[in-house]
């Protein structure tokens, strides 16, 4: 092992990029903004690499940086952090056209309709694979808060899935009413 070639911070960052982009997309809902965020995160992380504790979860560290950048940008722009208009939408057109596609479109809409904090929590736990503790660190909140956000998000999504599984996507006020109307009322 030469001094010039330590266990590469760079290669660890490279490996983290896909997950980081997905997280950035889920926050901003836009490819260009997501890529800008990832780029700033890479630069910031690089300059702070002494702060990173080897052996800890690098993705969690990077996600925390990215998330802080995102929210401080939003604040700078004087914007409420609001529900984005299209989480993952850009990819929907090329989604695999198996029988789950309609279902997935409904699901995506339901995900978008969630409050941002709940959406973030359920993605960190359910898709990005973090533990509740890691997600709490990333979001800067208590573990219990993450748990309750995930649980609320899950029950909303669950009711949407229940609806789309039981009917032929026709209007069915008896079952779809509460969730869907709330989603459109925002």
């Amino acid at each position, binding site marked *: 092992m030469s001094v010039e070639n330590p266990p590469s911070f*760079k290669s660890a960052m490279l490996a983290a990029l896909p997950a980081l982009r*997905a997280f950035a997309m889920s926050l901003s809902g836009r490819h260009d903004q997501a890529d800008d965020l990832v780029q700033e995160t890479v*630069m910031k992380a690089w300059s702070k690499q002494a702060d990173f504790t080897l052996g800890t979860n690098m993705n969690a560290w990077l996600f925390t940086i990215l998330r802080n950048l995102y929210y401080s940008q939003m604040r700078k722009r004087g914007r409420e952090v609001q529900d984005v208009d299209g989480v*993952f939408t850009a*990819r929907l057109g090329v989604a695999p056209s198996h029988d789950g596609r309609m279902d997935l479109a409904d699901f995506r809409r339901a995900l978008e309709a969630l409050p941002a904090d709940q959406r973030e929590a*359920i*993605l960190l736990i359910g898709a990005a694979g973090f533990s509740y503790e890691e997600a709490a660190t990333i979001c800067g909140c208590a573990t219990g808060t993450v748990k309750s956000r995930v649980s609320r998000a899950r029950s909303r999504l669950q009711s949407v899935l229940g609806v789309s599984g039981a009917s032929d996507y026709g209007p069915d006020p008896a079952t779809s009413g509460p969730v869907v109307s709330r989603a459109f009322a925002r």
Partner: protein
Amino acid sequence: MKSVPDSTPDEPSPPSRRPRVRRKDPLGPESEIGARLRMLYAEVESEPIPSGLIELLEQLGEAERRAVK
């Protein structure tokens, strides 16, 4: 002559109550929600990384190597 019903006679747990010990992860591999979340996420993750990002990392690595020397 009827065939034997499917249910196994030595099944211990009553159908109305699930054993708590093997509680399923609500977002785990068997969960529909988990599967869909991962599907959406995986679509973005599988996109090619923009070359600019990779170049940026290469440049940072290069700058560091020079600084170390």
